């Protein structure tokens, strides 16, 4: 990694560590203090490093500076200190040195607990994701804004509201009780799943950042696996799902930055290691009785790691989509299931079922019908593709559909 990449990367990883530990120490109601200390630290780093060059161990440098700043802060804020000290009265010795514990162990523990705080059900989903990116992943406001294709003001507003909520609801940084973990984990996993999808499915030109969203979601999911209490089957299933999808990163975009559809991908570009990783965690997820939607989606992703069309592959995928549909309806699942129906059973059957879906305002619906009709009735295929072209919103989608029209 060169310096241009190293510094933002370092800032991100160190920022989230410092925030997690300081929030755990000060309490979430003082999250802004933690953010100020972290930002100050990085400001000082940019200034000092700009003049003197990079220190030998930049991460340790940042940790020390953050620690000193926090200590100073406490010295000048008796109120906060008095509030914190009683809480750690029994963990001797009582110096500021022990208060700001930036050991690997405490960082890991703090981050895990922060994850449950950020993904508290009282916070709106959109805000959870923004907050997760800020405090769990250490993304800058401008990075979050471009990840969401919106402006900094919107993201700031979202974050302020979420932090207000954390304060008002007095959310504490701790793991839920053992009998609550399953329920609370649902929200955490949903947020991680959405964070991943945000990176995976919303394609845009700055795809490097988007790929990082996926890696961050994977890192956070893996930290749940590392903890005994949260290492549950559905977590393993989600991690397997993410691994399978991530294996196609290099294959789903060509040199020009255009999306390459699954059928047209060069499977030699699929990352075998990530596929194996997915297989391992999918196997781990089959302990226990619970069958979550992540299990089903990971199963579907698993079958997609076989490029060749076999009856077995598509019958399995169809059944998995059927189970998903029974668990919860979504138009995308219904459409994907119809595609699987065309592969497993017949195109005629799939067309009949697709037309009953009546998702006429959805460009994917028309793309699917165009695809199903293309060897049966070119006129109908052309009609559906042109409907899809009108409904598609992103230039990438429009480009893909145009290619299909040209190929008719």
């Amino acid at each position: 990694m060169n310096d241009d990449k190293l510094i933002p990367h370092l800032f991100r990883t160190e920022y989230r560590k410092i925030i997690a530990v300081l929030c755990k120490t000060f309490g979430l109601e003082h999250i802004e203090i933690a953010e100020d200390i972290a930002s100050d630290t990085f400001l000082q780093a940019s200034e000092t490093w700009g003049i003197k060059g990079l220190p030998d161990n930049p991460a340790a440098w940042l940790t020390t500076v953050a620690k000193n700043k926090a200590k100073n802060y406490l010295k000048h804020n008796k109120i906060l200190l008095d509030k914190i000290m009683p809480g750690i009265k029994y963990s001797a010795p009582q110096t500021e040195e022990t208060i700001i514990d930036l050991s690997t162990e405490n960082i890991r523990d703090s981050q895990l607990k922060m994850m449950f705080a950020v993904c508290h059900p009282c916070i709106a989903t959109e805000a959870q994701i923004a907050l997760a990116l800020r405090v769990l992943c250490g993304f800058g406001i401008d990075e979050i804004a471009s990840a969401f294709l919106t402006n900094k003001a919107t993201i700031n507003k979202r974050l302020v509201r979420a932090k207000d909520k954390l304060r008002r609801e007095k959310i504490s940084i701790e793991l839920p009780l053992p009998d609550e973990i399953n329920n609370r984990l649902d929200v955490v996993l949903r947020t991680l799943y959405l964070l991943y999808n945000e990176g995976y499915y919303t394609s845009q030109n700055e795809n490097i950042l988007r790929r990082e969203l996926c890696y961050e979601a994977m890192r956070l999911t893996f930290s749940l696996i590392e903890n005994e209490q949260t290492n549950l089957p559905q977590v393993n299933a989600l991690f397997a799902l993410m691994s399978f999808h991530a294996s196609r990163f290099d294959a789903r975009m060509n040199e020009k930055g255009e999306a390459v559809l699954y059928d047209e991908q060069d499977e030699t570009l699929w990352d075998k290691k990530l596929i194996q990783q997915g297989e391992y965690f999918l196997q781990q997820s089959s302990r226990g009785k619970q069958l979550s939607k992540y299990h089903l989606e990971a199963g579907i992703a698993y079958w997609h790691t076989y490029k060749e069309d076999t009856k077995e592959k598509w019958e399995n995928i169809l059944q998995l989509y059927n189970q998903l549909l029974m668990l919860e309806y979504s138009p995308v699942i219904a459409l994907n299931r119809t595609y699987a129906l065309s592969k497993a059973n017949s195109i005629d059957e799939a067309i009949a079922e697709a037309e009953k879906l009546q998702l006429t305002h959805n460009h994917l619906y028309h793309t699917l019908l165009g695809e199903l009709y293309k060897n049966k009735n070119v006129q109908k295929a052309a009609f559906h593709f042109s409907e899809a072209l009108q409904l598609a919103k992103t230039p990438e989608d429009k480009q893909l559909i145009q290619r299909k029209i040209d190929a008719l």
Partner: protein
Amino acid sequence: MKDFLFIFRVDYAGMGRLSAEELQNVAAAAKGWIENIAAQNKLADKGNRLIPGSGKVLRSKDIITDGPYVETKEAINGYLIIKSATIEEAVDIAKNNPLFKLNIGGSIEIREVSTI
């Protein structure tokens, strides 16, 4: 959207005359029928199938008999709830049930669920 309860009645004796393969086909087709309803976002509750010969009927607190349903030509064997705008649409959905491809009796009773 309204909810409609589908009550399935079959002639268990008639079903018994089907070959194992025919039974399997009809079960698979019934499963596909429900999945297609779910794909249209019209499945409110996938319901359940009932175990034949497992019933009791209470006529009063003291008069309890075993369910007679298995022997009748029209024994309830399952239920589910669908969502649809009109009863006509619900009837159309029911028409596609594979039961009617076989000549073994049986029926689907369709009842709008009261929201009060």
